[in-house]
C-alpha cells in the first residue's frame, strides 16, 4: 500500500482539516440507493480539491442500523451495503495517495444487541462471555447515572427476557454496554483497533468514552477506571503504531474534559462541545461574551494535544453544555418548531440554522477555522445543504450528498424511492438549487469560498498550532484575538453583528507592524500608538498577518 502522507509527522492532527462523512451518504456506485466505499473513492478528488486533509468516517461496520451504525454487530468487517473490506482498503490507499488521513469511528462503549458477543452473553449466566456485558438482577443499580436519550429511554437498565436479568445501557436499550471491568473485553477491543491500524487507518474517533466503566454511588461518567482503560489503549497505540491518533467524543465541560488529555498520555484530541453552541449563541446575541467566557474557562492542555472544533455534525446541535437560560434562548432562537428539537439539542444543519445567510455562514466558518483547534466540517455544509426535519431522529441531517441538479442529485442511479433516505427537495435547499456542479461553475459560490478559506488556513501552522490571546475592545460585538506561533502573528477580528460596526483595537504591542489581509493580500495601515480603527460590514471578518517590514 502506498502511504504518501508523512509517517514521521506525529502531530499531523494539529494541522488537519477534517471532513466528516458517512459512507452511506456520499455516492452510490452500484445503484442500490446506498452510498458505498467505491463511491466514496470516486469522490476523493473532490475532497482533495476542497482542501481537507483528513476524513472521519462514521461507523461502517456490520450493524442492524437501528442507530445509524453506532450499534455494531461485527467489528472486523464492513457492512455489506457499503462494500467489502477490499473496497475499504482501496479507499484508504486512495485517500493516502492524496495526502488525506482517514479517521474511523470506534464504538467502544457498547455493541448492538445483535452482536454475537451479546447473544452468547445472554444465552446463559454460565456462558464464558456472560461478563462481557453489565448484568444485574435488579434495575436499581447506578441510580445517579443520567439518561442520555431521554426522549426514548426511561431507564439505563433493560430487561432481557432470555436470561431473565437486566442489562446496562447508557444509550438505546438495543445497545448493551460492554463490561470494561473484564480484562478480556479490554484485550478484545484493543485487538479490534489493532486490526484497523494494521490496515492503515490514521486514527480513531472514540465514541461515548466517558461511560466505559460504572461504579455505584457515582454518575458513572469520567471515572478514574475509565481513564485507566484509555491510558492502556494509548500506551499500546504509541508502542505499536506511533503517529496514530485518538479523538475523544465526550460531551462534557472543559474542566471535565481536561483529564482525558491527562499528561498527554490519553487522547490526542477531544471535541470542544461547549464552544459550539456558544458560537451560535454569540452570533444570535451579537455579543462575544458566550464565546470568550467558555474559552476563558477552557483549561490549558498538554502541548501535544489539541481541541477539535465543529459547527455541525451528524448528531443534533447539542445544548447539554448550556445553562437552562442559555438552552431556552437557543431553542427559541434556532428551533422555533418543536420538531426541530431532539433530546437536549437541535437537529438541523448549518445553513438552515443560519437562515441560509451567506454572511453568517462565512463568519461561523471563519471562526471555526481561526479559533484554536482542528476544525471538522460536516459533509454537505460546504455547499450549504439543507435538512429535512420530517425525517425521524437525526436522519434529517444525514440525507444524500447533492452532487448535481439531475437524477437523484447525482448520488445514485436507482429509483428515488429506493434511496436510503429521501433527497432534500425544497425550493431553497433542494438539490436542483444546491449542488456541487452548480457551485463549481460559480466563482463566488459557497463551495469555492470554502476552498479558498481552507487554502488560507493551510497556508500557515499558526491556526492549528499557535497560541491565542483575546483582545477585549469596548465594542462587545467584535470578537478579536491574536494567534501566534514563533515569529508569526495573525490578528483575527470578527463582527458578530448584523449591522456595520466600528472598533478601536489596542495594538500598541504590535507597533510598527503592517497588517496584511490574508485573503486579498492587501496592505492595511501600519500600527502606531493610537487605537487601531477598523470598520466592518455586517458579519464581516478579517484575518490579518502582521508583518514588520
Amino acid at each position, binding site marked *: 500500500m502506498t502511504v504518501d502522507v508523512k509517517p514521521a509527522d506525529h502531530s499531523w492532527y494539529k494541522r488537519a482539516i477534517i471532513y466528516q462523512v458517512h459512507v452511506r451518504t456520499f455516492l452510490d456506485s452500484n445503484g442500490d440507493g446506498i452510498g458505498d466505499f467505491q463511491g466514496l473513492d470516486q469522490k476523493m478528488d473532490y475532497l482533495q480539491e476542497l482542501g481537507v486533509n483528513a476524513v472521519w468516517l462514521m461507523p461502517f461496520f456490520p450493524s442492524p442500523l437501528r442507530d445509524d451504525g453506532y450499534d455494531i454487530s461485527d467489528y472486523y468487517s464492513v457492512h455489506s451495503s457499503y462494500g467489502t473490506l477490499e473496497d475499504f482498503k482501496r479507499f484508504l490507499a486512495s485517500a493516502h495517495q492524496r495526502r488525506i488521513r482517514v479517521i474511523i469511528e470506534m464504538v467502544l462503549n457498547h455493541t448492538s444487541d445483535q452482536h454475537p458477543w451479546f447473544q452468547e452473553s445472554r444465552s446463559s449466566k454460565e456462558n464464558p462471555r456472560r461478563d462481557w456485558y453489565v448484568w444485574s438482577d435488579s434495575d436499581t443499580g447506578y441510580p445517579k447515572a443520567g439518561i442520555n436519550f431521554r426522549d426514548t429511554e426511561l431507564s439505563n437498565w433493560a430487561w432481557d427476557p432470555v436470561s431473565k436479568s437486566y442489562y446496562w445501557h447508557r444509550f438505546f436499550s438495543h445497545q448493551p454496554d460492554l463490561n470494561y471491568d473484564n480484562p478480556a473485553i479490554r484485550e478484545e477491543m484493543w485487538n479490534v483497533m489493532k486490526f484497523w491500524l494494521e490496515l492503515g487507518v490514521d486514527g480513531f474517533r472514540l465514541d461515548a468514552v466517558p461511560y466505559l466503566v460504572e461504579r455505584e454511588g457515582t454518575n458513572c461518567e469520567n471515572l478514574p477506571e475509565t481513564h485507566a482503560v484509555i491510558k492502556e489503549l494509548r500506551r499500546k497505540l504509541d508502542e505499536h503504531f506511533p503517529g496514530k491518533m485518538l479523538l475523544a467524543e465526550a460531551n462534557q465541560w472543559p474542566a471535565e474534559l481536561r483529564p482525558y488529555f491527562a499528561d498527554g498520555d490519553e487522547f490526542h484530541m477531544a471535541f470542544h462541545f461547549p464552544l459550539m453552541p456558544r458560537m451560535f*449563541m454569540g452570533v444570535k446575541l451579537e*455579543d*462575544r461574551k458566550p464565546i*470568550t467566557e467558555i474559552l*476563558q474557562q477552557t483549561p490549558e492542555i498538554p502541548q501535544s494535544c489539541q481541541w477539535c472544533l465543529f459547527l455541525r455534525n451528524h448528531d443534533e446541535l447539542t445544548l447539554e453544555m448550556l445553562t437552562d*437560560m442559555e438552552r431556552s434562548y437557543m431553542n427559541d432562537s434556532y428551533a422555533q418548531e418543536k420538531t426541530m428539537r431532539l433530546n437536549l439539542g437541535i437537529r438541523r444543519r448549518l445553513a438552515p440554522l443560519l437562515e441560509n445567510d451567506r454572511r453568517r455562514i462565512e463568519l461561523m466558518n471563519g471562526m471555526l477555522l481561526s479559533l484554536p483547534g482542528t476544525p471538522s466540517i460536516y459533509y454537505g455544509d460546504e455547499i450549504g445543504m439543507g435538512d429535512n426535519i420530517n425525517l425521524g431522529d437525526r436522519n434529517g441531517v444525514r440525507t444524500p450528498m447533492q452532487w448535481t441538479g439531475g437524477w437523484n442529485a447525482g448520488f445514485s442511479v436507482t429509483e428515488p424511492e429506493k434511496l436510503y433516505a429521501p433527497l432534500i427537495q425544497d425550493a431553497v435547499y433542494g438539490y436542483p438549487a444546491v449542488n456541487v456542479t452548480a457551485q463549481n461553475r460559480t466563482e463566488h459560490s459557497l463551495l469555492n469560498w470554502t476552498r479558498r478559506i481552507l487554502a488560507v488556513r493551510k497556508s500557515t501552522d499558526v491556526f492549528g498550532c499557535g497560541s491565542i490571546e483575546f483582545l477585549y475592545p469596548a*465594542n*462587545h460585538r467584535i470578537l478579536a484575538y491574536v494567534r501566534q506561533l514563533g515569529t508569526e502573528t495573525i490578528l483575527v477580528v470578527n463582527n458578530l453583528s448584523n449591522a456595520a460596526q466600528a472598533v478601536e483595537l489596542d495594538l500598541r504591542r504590535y507597533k510598527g507592524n503592517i497588517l496584511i489581509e490574508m485573503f486579498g493580500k492587501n496592505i492595511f495601515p501600519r500600527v502606531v500608538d493610537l487605537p487601531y480603527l477598523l470598520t466592518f460590514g455586517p458579519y464581516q471578518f478579517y484575518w490579518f498577518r502582521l508583518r514588520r517590514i
Partner: protein
Amino acid sequence: MKNARAADDSILTDEFLRQLINVGEVDILVGLPTHNNAKTIGPIVATIQAGLLAFFPRDRAAIINADGGSQDGTTELVLNAAIDDVRRGSKISALRTLHVISTQYAASPTRGTALRSILAAGELLRAKTSVVISPESTQVETDWLTKLVRPIYAGEFDLVLPTYSRHRFDGILLTNLLYPMTRALYGLRIREPYALDFAFSGTLGSQFLAQNAWQDETARAGSETYFTLNAIASRARICQSFLGTREHIERRSADLIPALRQTVGALFSSLGPHMALWNASTASQPIPTTGPEREFTLEPLRVNRKRLREMFSTGVAELESVFQAILSPSTLEELRRIARLEETEFRYPAELWVKTIYEFAVAYHKTVISRDHILQALAPLFRGRAFTFLAENRNGSADGVEDNIEALCLEFERGKPYLLELWNGTQ
C-alpha cells in the same frame, strides 16, 4: 471623562459618543441622573442590574449614568455594575454584555441636562424603551423595571408613570398643587406628573429631545414635568404602574424654592404653549393603572407646623407689594385675613388656595414681574397651605387623606373657568 471635549453644538462629549458606539443598539436603556449620590447609588444600580438579568435576560440593555460632576465617587460606583467578558460578578449568570456608561456633562448639574443626555443616548442607541430611575429611589425593587418597561414593550403605551405607597405627608406640593392642577387642566388623573422614576418609548423620547425647550432655563430645571406635559400634549398613550414604597425624604426648608422652579415653574410655563389643549379639556378621566393609584402610610411624622404658619404670615406681610402685582385684591385681602388668625383657627381653605394658584399661573404667563420672583413668592403661601393640609389630616385615615385630596382636585376643576376668565382678560 469630565474634561473630554465635545463638539461646540453638542451636549455629548467625544468620549461619551465613543462609548455609545461601543454599545451599539439596545432594547432597554436605564438612565441614572446623578450628582453626588454615592450614599445611595450603589444598591440602586445593583438592583437595576439584578432586575435586568431577572426579567430581561435576553434583551440588549445599557445603564447610562448622566452625572453632574460628582466628587464623591458616584460614577465609580455606577461603573462597577458592568457585566462583560472581562468583568463578571461571581454569582451573576448573564447571557449578554451589560454596558454601563458614565458621562459627566460640563454644564452645572441640572436634571434637565441629565435627562437630555439620557434622551440623546436613547436616540443614538435606538432604545425601544428608556427608563429613568432616580438616585433617591432607595427602595427600588428588581420588579420596578418590568413594571415600567412591559407596558411599552407590549406596544400599548408610550409613557409609564409611577404611583407609590407614600407617607400621607410626603409630597404635599404634589398632592396640593401639581396633581390637582394638572388633572384639572389636562383632564388626566396623573398622580405623579413630576415623576422621578418613569419609562418611555423611543419614539416619545426622540420627540421630546427634538423640542426647542432645552434652551429655556425653566424647562431645563423642570424637565420631568415638561416631559409629562409634552406627552399629554402630543396625545401619547400614558399609563401608571404601582411601584411600591417610596421612602419619605426629609427636605430642608431651603429646598422648596428649587422644587417650585422644577415643578410649578414647568407647569406654569406649559400653560401658554398648551392653552388650546387645556382650554378644550373637560372633566378629568382616570388613566390605565396597574396596581393601586395611591397608597398612604400613616406612621407618625414629626413636622414643625408652627414654623410653617409663621413663615406664611411673615411672607404675606413682607411680600405685600409683590402680591399686589400677582393677586386680585379680593384674594390678597383674604390672605391678609387668614394671616392674622391664631394658629388654632388658621386654615388656608381649598377654594382660596385654588384661586391663589390660578392667579399666580396667569401672573406667571403674563410675566407681571420676574417669573422667578413669582415662584419665590409662592413659597410662603404654599407653606400656609401645607400647614392646613397637615392639620386637616393629622388624625386622618388613608381614605380620609385621599378624600381630602380628591376634594381639592374637584375644587381645582370647579375653578377652571375662573382661570380661563383670568387668562382671557375678562376678569
